[in-house]
Every structure is written in C-alpha cells, then in structure tokens.
C-alpha cells in the first residue's frame, strides 16, 4: 500500500468499498481482500489524523 496516498483519497476509496458492498457489487471472493483493504485504509486515515495532530502541536510549540 502506498504511504503517499492522501487522506481524502483514502477516505474516498473507503467509501467506494462500502458503497460497492451496500450495492452487492462485490464478488464473495473479493470480500476478505476488500475488508483487509478497508481496514488498512481506516488505519492509514487514523494514523494521518494522529500524526497531523502531533505535528500541529509540535509546530506551535516551536514558534
């Protein structure tokens, strides 16, 4: 998985997965793979949020 993916892109992909699932557009065979992907995306997004929060605090503390 690319670390360079933007938060917005990751979130959009996550939404797309959910939408496909809601619409039964996914093959059963893809299910576990997509679930894995979804969890990766969620972790990525949460990490980005945490990292941004820390960076903001660090930047402001230095100024």
């Amino acid at each position, binding site marked *: 998985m690319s670390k360079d993916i933007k938060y917005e892109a990751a979130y959009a992909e996550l939404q797309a997965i959910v939408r496909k699932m809601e619409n*039964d557009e*996914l093959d059963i065979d893809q299910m576990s793979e997509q679930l894995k992907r979804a969890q990766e995306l*969620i972790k990525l997004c*949460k990490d980005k949020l945490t990292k941004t*929060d820390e960076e*903001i605090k660090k930047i*402001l503390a230095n*100024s």
Partner: protein
Amino acid sequence: MITKRFSLFELNRLVRETLECEMPNEYWVEAELSECRESRGHCYMELIEKDEKTATPIAKASAKCWASKWMLVRPNFERTTGLHLVAGMKVLLKVYPQFHEAFGFSWIVTDIDPTYTLGDMARKRQEIIRQLKEEGVFDLQKELSLPLFCQRIAVISSETAAGYGDFCNQLSDNPYGFQFQSWFFPAMMQGEGVEQSIIQALNHINAVCEDFDCVVIIRGGGATSDMSGFDTLALAENVANFPLPIITGIGHERDESILDMVSHTRVKTPTAAAALLIDHLKQVLDTINNSQNSIARSVQQKLSTLKAQLSTVSETIPRLFSIVKTRQEARLDTLGQRIPMLIERRLTNACHHLEIIEEKVKSLDPQLLLKRGYSITLHHGKTVRDPRQLHQGDEIETRLEKGTLKSIIK
C-alpha cells in the same frame, strides 16, 4: 539823478551793519544738509529747503560751525543719535547771521539739536515702513521658511570686519558635526554705499539662488552704530522680495533697522546668526530622531499586537483540529463497523441462495426415481435414452435402487 556811490566794501559793510543791527539774536532753524565737511577743525555745511511736493529748492544757504563750538556740538550729536552729520539729514540748528564783506553771507552755527534729527529719521523710517506695508511686501520674508536642511549659506558682509570669520568659526565648530558650506559676497556694511553694495550682492546671489538655502547679512563688532544705511526703502524692498530667507546679524543695541524688520529673522551678531542656523538643523535632526523613535515604537506595538493575535490563533488551531479529528475518526469508525456487517449480510444471503439451490438439487436426485422403481441404463457410463444407440453384444449397466446389474444386448 546822481546818488551816492558806494564801493563794494562800503555797501557790503552797510549790509553787515544792517544785519547786525536788525538781526542781533540767535535763531533755531530747520533745514536739510546738502553738504557737510570738516576742514581744520571747522565744519562747513550747505543748507537747503525743498518744496515738499516738487522737491525743488526754495532756499539755500551756507553755514559754518567754528572749531570752538564744533568740538562740543559734534560729540553731543553723535552720542545722542549714533550718527555722523551727513548730507541728506534734516537738522535743527541754532544760528546767527553773519555777513562778511569779502566772504558773503553765512549762518554761524552755535548748537545742533540732535533730537530733531532723531525724530525726523524716525518719521522717515515710519514712512518707509508704511510704504512697504502698502506695497504688501513688509511681511513677505516672514512667509518664507528655512529649508529643513539649510546648509548652503550665502553670506553678505564686509571684507574687513571680523564678522565673517566669527560666523564661519561658529558654524564649523558646531558640536553636532553638521556640515555647512558658506559663500562670501562682499559688501560695504557702513558709511555711504551700504544700500547699493548690499543690493548688488543680493543681485549676484539671486542670479544663482538655486545654489543656496538662505542668505545671511552680517556685520562684525567694531562697526559704528550708524544704521542709516540699513534704513532705506530700496534696500528694504530688495530684501523683502528676495526669494530666499534672509537672516540679519548686523549688531546694534538701539531700535531695529528696517532691514531687520523685513528680514526673515534678525539676530544681534554674526555668531548668533551661525548659532541660529546650527539650532535650526539641530531641531530638524531632533525631529528626524523623534520620528525614527516613534516609527520604531509603533512598529513594535503593532508587532506585539500581531504576536498576541497569532498566539491566540495558535492556541485555537489544536482545539479546532481535535474537533476535526474526532469527527473524522467517528466517520471512519462508522465505515469500519459497517463493512463487517455488510460482509456478514452478503455471506448470509449467499448461504441462503445455496440452501435453496441445494433443495432443488436434492429434489432432482435420480436416487429418488430409483426408489420409486425406475432404473437408469448406462452404456460406457452414458445414459441410454434410445435403444437405437445400442447394438447386439453391447454391454449395458442398469442402475436400480439397491444396486447395479450388467447385461448383454441380444
């Protein structure tokens, strides 16, 4: 008709005797001096009276002051007026008439009233002032202002007096290290010719007035207190109309001269004139320094205000971001929880489909037919649906409910 003939001497003596007899007294007479010169201790004057309107002479006479009187009269006059007796002055003389057979008529002066001359000069000064005001030029110099950086000075002074040197020394020794440049324009600063030579110097300066910031007219110590040269209409007009500010330092204790009145600024001495210029520049420097300080101060104030605003903002940012973060995390969690649910639903559905199909499959199981007594004939593992498929001697397999039997076609 023959009458008595006189010799000139006899007739002149008759005039003299008549005069001495008829006019034995002393008289006070007002007159203008048209000439005045000293010779061997005596003073010889020419008196004149002009018609007030036409200025043509209506009376003339010679007058003499003998040395014995002159040595008293002259110091008294000069002490009181500060002036020498010169042509053009109005005087009040105490005189008696004298007619000499050989030298003719003359008034003999025994006293001069200096206050009359002073009064007359004051009147003349008032007249000049009135005229300057009428012309609207009296205050023109006052409307000018010294340039901020008044450093290029045109100096009108006499070559002989120490005034110019004092002025230059004072300027160059200023404690602030200011640089001044001065140019010297020589002129007579006392006696006759003051008016003309100062006007001439002003004309020279005017021709290159772009090169100067102001004009200084100064006269060193030791000069007489004769100010009459500075009290003329022509000089006053030239000074008043001059395009640059003029500072006068012509040193005198008594009343201001008209030159002083019309100039931009008057001071007493050349040194004071230099001090004025230094002071002016010092004030400009102070203004600049003050402005610099107040600019720095207001910039600092502005900066600290902005800093305070920034720190308020920077305190707000983490708070705002944590709101964003919480919201985003909630959305992520929602999505994260939704996916397993969706998967489960999908799998359940798939299972259900499978079960239905299983049922269908079960209902089509051939074993059920066999149980009911039907059988299935196979040839080489394939179902035989038509006897024409088979030939004599083919081995066939028949599947029954409880087993298989093999047979040969006859």
